[in-house]
């Protein structure tokens, strides 16, 4: 890294990281500030963290968002993995069409999708606005993400391993469970890691298709922050950055430098 290029790259990278992290760091810092607007530093407090558990609205919204995000992750990664497998393994007519139509949910403007789904759910099919509509919307969106991530991994996998397993006497299912899935796992987890923030913080689509009793965290934040206080919301934001960070650090600490 002694070269000029190296130094320039380091500088750009550092600045970019700073750019990406400053808002989050501010958020974490001010989540400990006594100022209820979350703008100024007015002494250390933990009360906003307590507030998360005391304020029923915040707690319900958080719970709702987590349930939706976790369900979405589970269904989408499963469906995405299975679909990617089919797309990779079989040759059939219409494969390209399917691949391209899977791009649609990723590239469509959110607000158009949101409107389309709202109209579709209310005017065309009678799918109740609520968990069903939100989950359908989230899964429709996240599954393609998982498909493409897993598909990417599949292109780098040695597929004779699967044949080797069958040759050694393992049936299709056992092979899936013991060989294919472990090999795909990094991609499955990568999709979960990307789907979580997407589903957890989606506002536009959820906001449109949410029904009775479905105030998710982003909806609450949007509704409350336009007028209300921000400090408790800062605390929630802080938790969601801090948790994975702490997890990472712990893992690093306990794990000897083992290579996969």
């Amino acid at each position, binding site marked *: 890294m002694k070269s000029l290029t190296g130094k320039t790259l380091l500088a750009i990278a550092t600045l970019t990281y700073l750019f990406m992290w400053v808002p989050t760091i501010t958020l974490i810092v001010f989540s400990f500030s006594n100022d209820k607007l979350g703008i100024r530093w007015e002494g250390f407090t933990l009360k906003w963290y307590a507030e998360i558990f005391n304020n029923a609205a915040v707690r319900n919204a958080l719970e709702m968002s987590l349930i939706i995000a976790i369900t979405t992750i589970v269904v989408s990664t499963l469906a995405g993995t299975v679909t990617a497998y089919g797309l990779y393994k079989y040759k059939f007519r219409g494969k390209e069409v399917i691949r391209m139509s899977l791009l649609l949910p990723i590239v469509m403007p959110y607000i158009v999708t949101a409107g389309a789904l709202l109209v579709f759910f209310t005017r065309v099919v009678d799918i109740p606005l609520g968990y069903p509509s939100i989950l359908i919307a989230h899964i429709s969106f996240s599954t393609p993400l998982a498909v493409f991530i897993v598909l990417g991994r599949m292109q780098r996998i040695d597929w004779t391993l699967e*044949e*080797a397993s069958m*040759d*050694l006497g*393992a*049936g299709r299912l056992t092979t899936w469970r013991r060989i294919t899935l472990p090999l795909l796992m990094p991609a499955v987890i990568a999709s979960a890691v990307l789907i979580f923030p997407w589903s957890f913080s989606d506002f536009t689509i959820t906001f449109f298709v949410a029904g009775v009793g479905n105030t998710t965290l982003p909806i609450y934040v949007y509704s409350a922050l336009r007028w209300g206080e921000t400090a408790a919301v800062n605390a929630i934001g802080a938790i969601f950055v801090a948790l994975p960070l702490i997890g990472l650090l712990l893992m690093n600490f306990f794990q000897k430098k083992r290579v996969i």
Partner: protein
Amino acid sequence: MENRESIPCVELRNLVKRFPGVTAVDHVSLKVEKGKVFSLLGPSGCGKTTALRIIAGLETMDEGDVLIDGKVINDVPAYKRDCSIVFQTLALFPHMTVEANVSYGLEQRKVPKDEIRKRVGEIIDLMGLGGMEKRRPSQLSGGQQQRVALARSLILSPKVLLLDEPLASLDRKLRKGMQVELKRIQREVGITFLYVTHDQKEALSLSDTIAVMDKGKLEQVGTPEEIYETPRTKRVADFIGASNIFPGKVIASGNGKVQLETEGGSRVIALENKDIRSEEVTGISVHPELVEVLPEGTGLEGDNRFRGKIVEMIYQGDFIETKICLDQTGGLITSYLNSRLGRETQFSPGEEVLVHWSPESSNILLG
């Protein structure tokens, strides 16, 4: 060989496999004897790997039957077939230890844990892998990985072990060592090996029987000696390394000899073979090491003597690859001269010489 009435370990009957635009396996029938090493030899893309994969059940055939131990197993899925394949890429499970890799097959067969442990221990000893049990494949050398792959298949005591160019990824020296090792292991466990390779030397040194394939068709089946010394067709002759091939027609026969006229117009003599009808003959081949080079002064009398000029001499260590341009036809003939002899006779490029080989050395080609 013929008088033994045993059931072949593996038998293919009229096997056909078509891929879009190409017939990979074209009506192949063969029998693999129990306890022997049988090689499928051929250039890459000749369909040998496809045939192997069909036997393993990893590919379905379009026509024909596969039999193991006399039973048709066309519809038996891969995981129920009594054979095991060692892949060219080895296909060791990267996320499992050596031990887990080796015991994988036994676990699928629901073998009791104690027995698995015992058999894994045995095979690891046999393979000389002691101490590597807990390592992952990525932490092993190429040769060690090879052994793990072998152990993983052998531990199942399959009726036949299918090897798909297993040594291709090793360097030359390691490959030599592994060939010897393979032979030893095969003798020790007594399992039938069906070996796919494109390396004729490997096939010659390892096999009891060799089947040469080209473009999906079986060209010739025989012992290594038969294949080497009497290749039946141009393609086999070419592939096995007999680089002197003279296409031609039989023009006369008698006295236990046949006379052919090559496309260039020379006459060559070969021994007559009762089994061969002369219309079928398409030419002859001569191994370069059987081609003698004589100083120019030597007489032209006798069979298979031709005048020529040395165009190239390539020192190959134990022999000198000498290319001679024949005066009569302008064609090239290759001779492997013994290095020492070569020095003694002191041929040099550009020199006019006489080439000669005995009629016994002429091998009649049929296709």
